[in-house]
């Protein structure tokens, strides 16, 4: 990546320190517009429907889902992997790009990180609710108990528990540490007593002293150092759920890098979706500029191409290995009863990102927005294809079955979208969406 100084200004509109603070602070105190309320209402309703569906599942049993004797995991785990994938962009942007000193990240890292946390929360829901006995789900934690039973450390599902909780905790702390200086600013500017007290509590007594800044920097870098390997490890471990199994189509050593690339790919797409909407509705065009969007699109080409190569490698290895089950699994993906899912995946993930080689398209906001949606659809199908098509026709043809989700599974997915957007809308309303303190470091002092 080229030197930042040779590029255009990161933010536009000739901002000075005060205007930046104004721009970020004002939405927090201003009365939100009706779109925000409408959005919140919609998202919260969806979340409510999702919660009802979850309660029904726990009460009635997994039988109200479409999974069956052959296909044990369906939409539930598809959604889990999809959400975890989305949850990769935030930490990638804030940790890895921080370590690489990519200043452009400052405009987007705050909301990207928030998105990460919300996505991981949604992801974490699925392994829980897909359990047959959620109420005994705590068995999965290695806690001391009188029964002298211990968890099975051989199981990738257990690794998942550690990987995801660690990731969630570190991301949350990292995000929060980053928020502290800005929360201090918000506290100082807040007029009403209650709100002031609220932000005072949250800002941990930040004064902006040199000592504070010094500690802030140390903590930020330490956390970034911690978080960076996590970005790679989480999806690696999620991919182990599949890679360590014996099911053709799952048992693939390429999965870790391929999953990580796919995760960043889908995460950036989701960041783009949210940013494009947010910059427009919250008047942040000066901060999240077309340059940012283009830079993200470049990462999408990179990760999308890695994913594409991974797909092709998989196919090649399936043939080259000479394992009939493996070869069948991949031929079945492309030509079996779920061919349409495979070809949606191929089109959305392999073909469409290549269009970003055209600078014009890369810098078109509408096209980028469309692509961000297409990529996330494609990435959802990738997980669906991996999970369902591998399971539905595995070793013994006598057990081959078809899988179709029930309305409950669909509503739970809609519900997590609802939870995600509810949290995000609340975030943009109550927290500074742009890391003011960090953005300020990128402009020349006026």
């Amino acid at each position: 990546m080229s030197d930042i100084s040779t590029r255009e200004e990161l933010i536009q509109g000739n901002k000075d320190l005060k205007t930046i603070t104004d721009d970020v602070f004002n939405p927090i105190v201003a009365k939100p517009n009706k779109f925000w309320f409408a959005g919140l209402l919609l998202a919260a309703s969806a979340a409510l429907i999702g919660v009802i569906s979850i309660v029904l599942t726990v009460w009635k049993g997994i039988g109200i889902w479409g999974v069956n004797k052959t296909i044990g995991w369906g939409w539930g785990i598809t959604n889990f992997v999809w959400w975890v994938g989305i949850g990769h962009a935030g930490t990638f942007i804030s940790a890895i790009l921080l370590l690489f000193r990519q200043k452009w990240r400052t405009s987007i890292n705050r909301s990207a990180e928030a998105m990460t946390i919300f996505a991981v929360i949604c992801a974490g829901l699925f392994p829980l609710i897909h359990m047959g006995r959620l109420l005994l789900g705590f068995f999965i934690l290695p806690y001391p108990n009188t029964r002298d039973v211990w968890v099975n450390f051989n199981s990738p599902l257990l690794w998942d528990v550690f990987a995801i909780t660690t990731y969630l905790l570190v991301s949350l702390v990292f995000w929060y540490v980053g928020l502290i200086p800005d929360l201090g600013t918000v506290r100082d500017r807040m007029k009403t007593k209650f709100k002031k007290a609220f932000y005072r509590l949250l800002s941990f007594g930040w004064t902006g002293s040199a000592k504070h800044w010094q500690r802030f920097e140390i903590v930020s870098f330490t956390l970034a150092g911690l978080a960076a390997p996590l970005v790679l490890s989480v999806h690696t471990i999620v991919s182990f759920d599949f890679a360590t199994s014996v099911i053709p189509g799952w048992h693939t050593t390429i999965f870790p890098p391929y999953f990580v690339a796919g995760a960043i790919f889908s995460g950036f797409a989701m960041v783009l979706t949210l940013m494009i909407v947010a910059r427009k509705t919250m008047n942040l065009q000066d901060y999240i500029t077309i340059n940012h969007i283009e830079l993200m699109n470049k990462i999408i080409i990179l990760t999308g191409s890695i994913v594409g190569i991974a797909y092709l490698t998989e196919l090649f290895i399936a043939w080259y290995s000479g394992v009939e089950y493996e070869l069948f699994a991949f031929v079945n993906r492309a030509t079996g009863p779920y061919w349409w899912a495979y070809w949606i995946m191929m089109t959305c993930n392999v073909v469409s990102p290549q269009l970003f080689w055209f600078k014009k398209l890369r810098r078109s906001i509408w096209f980028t927005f469309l692509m961000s949606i297409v990529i996330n659809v494609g990435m959802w199908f990738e997980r669906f294809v991996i999970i369902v098509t591998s399971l539905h026709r595995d070793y013994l043809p006598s057990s081959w079955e078809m899988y179709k989700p029930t309305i409950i599974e669909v509503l739970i997915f809609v519900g997590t979208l609802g939870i995600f957007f509810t949290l995000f809308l609340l975030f943009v309303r109550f927290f500074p969406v742009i890391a003011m303190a960090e953005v300020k470091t990128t402009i020349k002092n006026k």
Partner: protein
Amino acid sequence: MTKYWKSLDGNSIQNKKEKVEKKSSTNRRDFLKTFGFGLASTFILSRCENAAHKAIPYLIKPEEVTPSIANYYTSSFFDGDKFNSILVKVLDGRPIKIEGNDLSSISLGATNSITQASILSLYDDTRYRKPKVNGEDSDWGTIDKQIIDQLKKAKEEKGKIAIVSPTIISPSTKKVIADFIKEYPTTEHITYNAISVSGLLDANKESFGKRIIPNYKFDKAKIIVGINADFLGTWLSPVEYTKQYVQNRQVSEDNREMSLHIQVESGMSLTGSNADERIIINPSEEQNLVANLYNYIANKVGEEEITASKPTMKITELGNDLLKNKGKSLVVCGTNNKETQLIVNGINQLLENYGKTISFNQALLTKQADDLEMADFIKNIDSYKGIIFYDCNPVYDYPAKEKLTNAIKNIELSISFSAIPDETSEIVKYVCPAHNYLEAWNDFNPKEGIYTLSQPCIHPIFDTRREQESFLKWAGIEQEYYQIIKQNWKSAVYSKTNLAFDFENFWIKSLQDGIIELESNSSEPKYKNDLSAIKITEPKSELELHIYESVHIGSGKHANNPWLQELPDPVSKVTWDNYAAISPFLSKEKSLKTGDVIIISGTMEIPVLVQPGQAKNTISIALGYGRTVAGKSGKDVGTDVYQLIKTDGYKEYSTDITIEKTKVFKELATTQLHDSMEGRDIVRETTLDKYKEKPSAGNERHKEIEKHHNTLYQEYVYEGHHWGMAVDLNACTGCNSCVAACSIENNVPIVGKEEVKRAHEMHWMRIDRYYAGDPENPEVIRQPVMCQHCGNAPCENVCPVGATNHSAEGINQMAYNRCIGTRYCNNNCPYKVRRFNWFDYNKSDALEGNLYDPHGMTKDLPRMVLNPDVTVRAKGVIEKCSFCVQRIQEKKLKAKMENRALQDGEILTACQQTCPANAIVFGDLNDKNSKVSKLFEQQRRYHLLEELHTLPTVGYLTKVRNKKGKKSNNKDHQKHA
């Protein structure tokens, strides 16, 4: 404020105050403590009490009953159609399982699925609780008085009374009926069999002077030709025949011979699917084929031929094969056409089979009814004053529904003994419910010279009475039926034995053994026959209907048994329905696909199933479905085809039909959707010729794969026992008895049709069925699959909580309590044998109001059938085959208590015990002399998907087909089929 004192004793106030203060200061706390403690304990105790069920311990323990230790009582199962000599497992006073009686030459320890599942009929919630008059509950006093009055009236008026029953094989019952007829001389006893063999009986009468079913000896035959006779599934005595059949089918390195089985049939039957060769005919071609076969053989042995038109297919091959094995061949035919059966008798006579593979010693007595007698009765039914229906349901299973219904409604005295509501008992005036067979004494004479008993295993659950008692009561005979049986046995059975002990000891021995086989050496009857008068019917070219008996539902009597309904059909794998089986050819021609509903002859709607191996111009439909009066599990399941059986003369189970397409689609609940093995190395097979040369034929890969078995880890050494199982694919016929037995033994829940459609069935074992070759006449491949108990199990290492793990004896075990239901184990199981509890099937969930029990299996009565040695599983946990670990533990403990080593063969898994084909052998692999170890040494042994290095402890033995090397022969049959 001034304080006034009340008495001179000022201390008293002081004291009082102190007391009060003292009291109150501690009182409040005490109160709260006590209150809190009380509330908590009341709450807890009340919860405890709610959860506990009342159990009253024995004040005086009965001698034989030890709680939680099972007793086995001998008994007999006879449903008017098939007989089985059985053992009933009674635990804490409840019969909970049926096994075959290994002392009986009829069952040899095995049962079929119907016998297995019949235990549930005892706990059928729809059973009549008490006698009924005109549909109203009544009591025995009232009902007896009314019936006796009516009987007397009929007697005076010389009005005819009929007892309608299936064939009665109980000598004592016959005696009781005879006594009844003596009292009411106008009574006639009319018998009919829902699935009739009248033609066969009458043919034998004509050929041999004996109206009897001979004793077929499939074990003595080197070549077996079955003509529309499903002798492994439904024909006459399938368990016995399967036991015989597999004796010549199980090859080993020491015995490399096996019989040749050729099946000639219209629909793909269980037997046909096991045949080495199948010849497909339309029902109308049957007689022509049989006649030409007769002629071919007659010609070769220099006997006179009969007049018949040219054969519709080549039969030279078949004829030559039979001629090569004179006296060692067996031709059986399932038709109810007397002429055809006469010719078949002729063929067997020409082949000198009588006295060798067919004997009239120990002839089968289970079906003796005469179609003409019943047809006559129906014709004159209006002339009867009274009808007593004994153990039969002709309104459903006799093709004269309307006539019978009207007659019964008009008749003054109509009585049914049915224990559960059926089509007949619903319209009769008096319902005198009989005991379930497990509640009553009875005796049976299933074969000549073979006598068995059935004894009560439980006190009658409801206010019912055995039929014989009713007859005796009405005839005014004051004697218990039990005493009659005993007397009868003394005179009829005991007298024929030359035993050195007295009758009481004989009686006890009979009860303990459950069966008495008398020696009989009567000479074979002489064959006399004139076939020249037979006019052979010409084959037709129209669409024909072939009506057959289904393996699990049978005549429909057991249609209300959800265990049977949920058992997949051995061939089509369809549950909870019958269907019109059509050939792939017809499917293309009429553009019909599985699930499309057609209308047959303008009267009945039925979904289609495209059945490979079906005759091109024939549609096959199973009997026993479409019950209109039955409990929830049997009512309106499938379509009734009894009404299409023609009854002028012998019942005809095939007829011409027309079909009409509709736009309706009805999804069949199938447990297997994919029929092809996809060229995978799943079932390894070879031909007999190749096997003779090299016992590892077809199994070459096994050694290759074993060579590559490597591991980085230290291999686990099983000290003590190492349980293993061998499944002989050459023996397994796919009858599903094991699946039934497994489900019953292990409390496997019933999920119902809708859930089977959603692939949520729970069976712990299944019999996979694949087709290979030409879809019009395919080869069928079967494989029983249960948990393979892998030594290197993929399911075990993926369970996050370690709920599934390996025992020191090599069993892959499930800790249900630990399972949280991630289903990861099931996903990672290459054999897909794990089953997940999708709903709360057993009323065992922590949450309430979410029971999923479509067939009322959790009601108090059906619940009694549960095996207390096996946990019922809660919603959300995975379950699977445990190698019947409860049985292993039981026998291990027994051996330990008796301070001896466990014997090989002592532990029988449920599937193994009930298998009529001896296909499953369980035992200790560490014991080099055990049967299973010996089978594992066979070069036929391989493991399913062994290339995955899962190291299963279930081994399969390759399938060996007695196929001829010459391809052209096969083609001949296919071309003409």
